């Protein structure tokens, strides 16, 4: 304004406004966004203080890192805590059931607690917030969230009670060097995967052909990853258990074969961390698990296989090709007294920039399409192009890896025990039949009233 060279007269101003308007015809979105930025009032809840309960993971590290920026923008103070997965779920359960949770925003494992949250009326329906222009910044663009993610974050009755901020796909990490040495191609089907594991397995050198979770509960997604290859989930759309049919038994046999014959000794007690250590130390050729482990695998201070890691899409099954889908959402506590401030927090944390940052950091796949398809992610990242391709492909073939029922944990426990038993030599069909019998009444009871 104090620039002496160009002092705009009223006429100048009017002329440039016209020019801007004309430009607006060509770039309407840009202008709308710029306008929105300036009109949306982020400071509406200045001075509020919200409590946030997060699950301990790299995504939460990023959320916490963004807190300062959020407070500067909105004046809202954030007090957040990261709690390990298992305790966080248990804390959510206890606190919500007691009626007065101590937090305003929580992270929710959609593949475990989604139905529980609906049944217990834990979370606020976000639809009114999304519709309210005074609460939702126009550049938030809920439609940008991938359809699969939106469906995952929604309840059966249409209530949008979480923003699906993180999506986890199951994929196959493989050691390129070992594959090259033995002249093995990346498997295209689950059957080929078994053959490959057999070829790569070399116990005399301390190298296993394959490793995946054997620990009960944790191992269920491994089995369902195979079952999805039959075009089937564990519970049908009508709520029937499909856990002891020929397809489920086939998946169980694959699980038993791979984890018993080609996996390192002791896999029966392995969770992701033991699997990760085994694979990272160059002691296994393949590892089937969630997509979020790239960071440690490519960390030279911890991993012996930096640069040798291949990121492969889950091989196809005999009837279908799917990648197991899991995910976390953020939701607002229904009994919170600061719901609107909490909504600003969620909006900010799940905006386009922050979702892209999460992808770039290798912290996992974001729920937003714009972030997933952004070429900037791959170029600006230390992870290989293959990683991002794997992510994108997996996203297209993703399907729920766990049933959408209330007692998910009990399901995982019961079938997890059955699968673990098969690793000690028990018959797959018998174990699955037994587990199905035990779990059936639990499922039926949970669906009553």
């Amino acid at each position, binding site marked *: 304004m104090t620039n002496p060279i160009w002092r705009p007269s009223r006429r100048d101003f009017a002329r440039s406004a016209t020019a801007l308007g004309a430009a607006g015809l060509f770039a309407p979105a840009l202008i709308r966004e710029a306008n929105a930025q300036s009109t949306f009032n982020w400071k509406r809840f200045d001075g509020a203080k919200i409590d946030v309960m997060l*699950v301990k993971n*790299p995504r939460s590290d990023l959320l916490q890192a963004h807190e300062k920026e959020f407070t500067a923008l909105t004046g809202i103070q954030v007090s957040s805590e990261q709690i390990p997965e298992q305790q966080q779920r248990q804390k959510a359960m206890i606190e919500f059931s*007691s009626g007065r949770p101590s937090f305003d925003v929580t992270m929710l494992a959609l593949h475990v607690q989604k139905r529980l949250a609906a049944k217990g009326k834990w979370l606020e329906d976000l639809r009114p917030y999304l519709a309210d222009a005074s609460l939702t910044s126009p550049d938030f663009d809920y439609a940008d969230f991938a359809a699969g993610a939106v469906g995952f974050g929604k309840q059966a009755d249409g209530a949008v009670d979480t923003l699906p901020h993180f999506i986890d796909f199951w994929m196959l990490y493989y050691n390129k060097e070992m594959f090259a040495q033995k002249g093995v191609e990346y498997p295209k089907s689950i059957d080929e995967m078994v053959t490959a594991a057999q070829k790569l397995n070399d116990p005399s050198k301390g190298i296993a052909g394959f490793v995946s979770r054997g620990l009960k509960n944790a191992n269920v997604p491994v089995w369902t990853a195979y079952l999805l290859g039959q075009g089937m989930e564990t519970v049908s759309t009508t709520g029937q258990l499909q856990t002891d049919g020929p397809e489920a038994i086939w998946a169980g046999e694959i699980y038993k074969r791979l984890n018993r014959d080609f996996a390192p000794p002791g896999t029966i007690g392995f969770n*992701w961390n033991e699997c990760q250590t085994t694979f990272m130390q160059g002691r296994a050729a393949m590892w089937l698990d969630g997509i979020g482990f790239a960071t440690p695998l490519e960390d030279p201070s911890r991993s012996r296989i930096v640069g040798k890691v291949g990121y492969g899409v889950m091989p196809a099954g005999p009837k279908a090709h799917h990648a197991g889908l899991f995910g976390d959402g953020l939701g607002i506590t229904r009994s919170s007294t600061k719901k609107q401030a909490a909504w600003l927090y969620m909006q900010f944390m799940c905006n386009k920039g922050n979702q892209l940052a999460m992808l770039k950091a290798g912290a996992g796949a974001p729920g937003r399409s714009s972030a997933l398809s952004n070429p900037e992610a791959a170029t600006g990242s230390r992870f290989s192009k293959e990683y991002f391709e794997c992510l994108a492909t997996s996203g297209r073939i993703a399907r729920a890896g766990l049933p959408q029922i209330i007692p998910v944990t009990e399901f995982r426990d019961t079938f997890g025990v059955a699968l673990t038993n098969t690793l000690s030599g028990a018959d797959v069909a018998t174990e699955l039949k037994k587990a199905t019998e035990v779990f059936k009444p639990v499922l039926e009871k949970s669906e009553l009233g």
Partner: protein
Amino acid sequence: MAGIERSSPVRRRTLAGSAGFALSLFMLVSPAVLVFLWMISLSLKNELDNTSFPPVFVPNPPTFENFIDVFAKNNFLLYFWNSVLVTGGAVLIGLLVGVPAGYGIARAKAAKTAVLILIARMTPALSYLIPLFLLFQWMGLVGTITALIITHLVITIPIIVWIMIGYFEGIPQELEDAAYVDGATLWQSFRYIAMPLARPGMVVAAILAFIFSWNNFVFSIVLGGKNSRTLPSAVYNSLTFEQISWGPLAAAALLVTLPVLVLTVVAQREIVAGLSAGGLKDG
């Protein structure tokens, strides 16, 4: 005295005998040495050395990265202070009510009351968690240090009472009888005669109560909030999905248990002497 040799002082010990003795001593002490040394070794090595096989025993060069990592990623000092407050509070209150209780029960020979207090010790800790959570929520105490102190009383009071019973039973009643005849009240004879004599017992009771309360982790996991979490549950919380690493974990584990280990070393004489003097004598 404790030091007197009982097993045939007359007989000369043969060379084989002392070698066998040394061997059994070695067998007894080495498991403890192994675990603690390995813990230290893990905490001072980088991740590649920690997961190499055959294992690297001596950190070369030792790295303090793991400890720096623990302090950088966790609010370790806060958790430490919380543990001090919770454990300190529970031990102080435990002594305040537990020492008189031990005296009363010993003198009244009220074995049944003793069993009543032991019930607190027999109940599985898990069964307290949900009802106490509801109770504390109703009282507005969830996530506070006060709530944890109250729960930790379940640990400290039984230990203190149990040890003090044995102690007071070992103190002859004649002195108190004499004072009583001279017109002292029961409280006075407890306060000025029995209690000073039982001071070594109080030290042991306090130390043991401190250690067991410090080591507890289930209470804090459910009843602790983000500002009242104690050290053991904080360490358990540092197990992260996707990022597990042995070095920082071992460093954190070492830091948690270090205070009690130091206490053990400093007070080992009191602990052994205290227990030997009748702390856990049948009562």
